[in-house]
């Protein structure tokens, strides 16, 4: 009886091999997961190619559309408009069908005009195929 108890208490020393056979599978699965799951960061933007150059003293042609921005809102050819109406007016000009030199839209702004409004004007101009020309203050 005593002998049997002693035998039961003795621990069996097993060989503790870590199974490494599936490591390669895990690693490749990780690689495939990241390859599939990752997306390249793509920011959303509006393209505006502003013409560089010196300020011209020449009077601006009456036909060139002018957008005036102020803290109060947007004016298109001296008429108050909102963003939607501005889009409509610019779409009516059919700028994409005109040659590049006639696609210019003058963008004038008062002091304190927020970038948000500028951005809306940029968006409207570039989505309708216009080229932005910034007007400098005197």
């Amino acid at each position, binding site marked *: 009886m005593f002998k049997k108890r002693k035998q039961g208490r003795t621990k069996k020393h097993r060989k503790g091999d870590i199974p*490494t056979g599936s*490591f*390669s599978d895990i*690693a*490749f699965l*990780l*690689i495939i997961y990241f390859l599939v799951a990752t997306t390249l*960061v*793509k*920011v*959303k*933007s*509006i*393209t*505006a*190619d*502003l*013409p*560089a150059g010196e300020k011209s003293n020449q009077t601006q042609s009456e036909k060139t559309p002018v957008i005036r*921005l102020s803290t109060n809102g947007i004016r298109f050819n001296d008429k108050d408009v909102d963003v939607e109406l501005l889009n409509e007016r610019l779409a009516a000009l059919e700028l994409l069908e005109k040659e590049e030199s006639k696609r210019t839209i003058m963008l004038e*702004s*008062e*002091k*304190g*005009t*927020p*970038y*948000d409004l*500028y*951005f*809306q004007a*940029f*968006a*409207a101009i*570039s*989505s309708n195929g216009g080229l932005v020309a*910034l007007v400098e203050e005197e």
Partner: protein
Amino acid sequence: MRKSQRKKRRSVPVPIASMGDIAFLLIIFFLVCSEVSKDKANVRVTLPESEKVEKMEATVVARIAVSEDGEIYFDGVRVDGAKDVEWGVRALLTNTVTDDQRHVQFKCDANLPKETFEPVLKAIAEAGGIIEAVGEKTN
């Protein structure tokens, strides 16, 4: 004679013992080599919203940001003014051949006044960059 003609079919085991090592080396290689996007510089900006924004397809040569407190960042590094931006962009565009290589990302806080961001826009234009103004799509 017959016996010698018979081909011995040996089982050819593919050595797969090192596959795990190769895979982990690949993971480590990409972890070490990959670079965190410069776009993620710690610049606090509230982006303007518009329905017209589209996913940017062009590759940009530089990233300019104007933070909510009016500080200007060139590729994540703070610069003193618009003139630095102009020189920086001009230097990057010296060897450009096509228009595709002239795109400059511009990020600006929606609430900033004209006096703060317009000189930067003009600087990019003067240097010959095509502005990619970053915004968010209106929900």
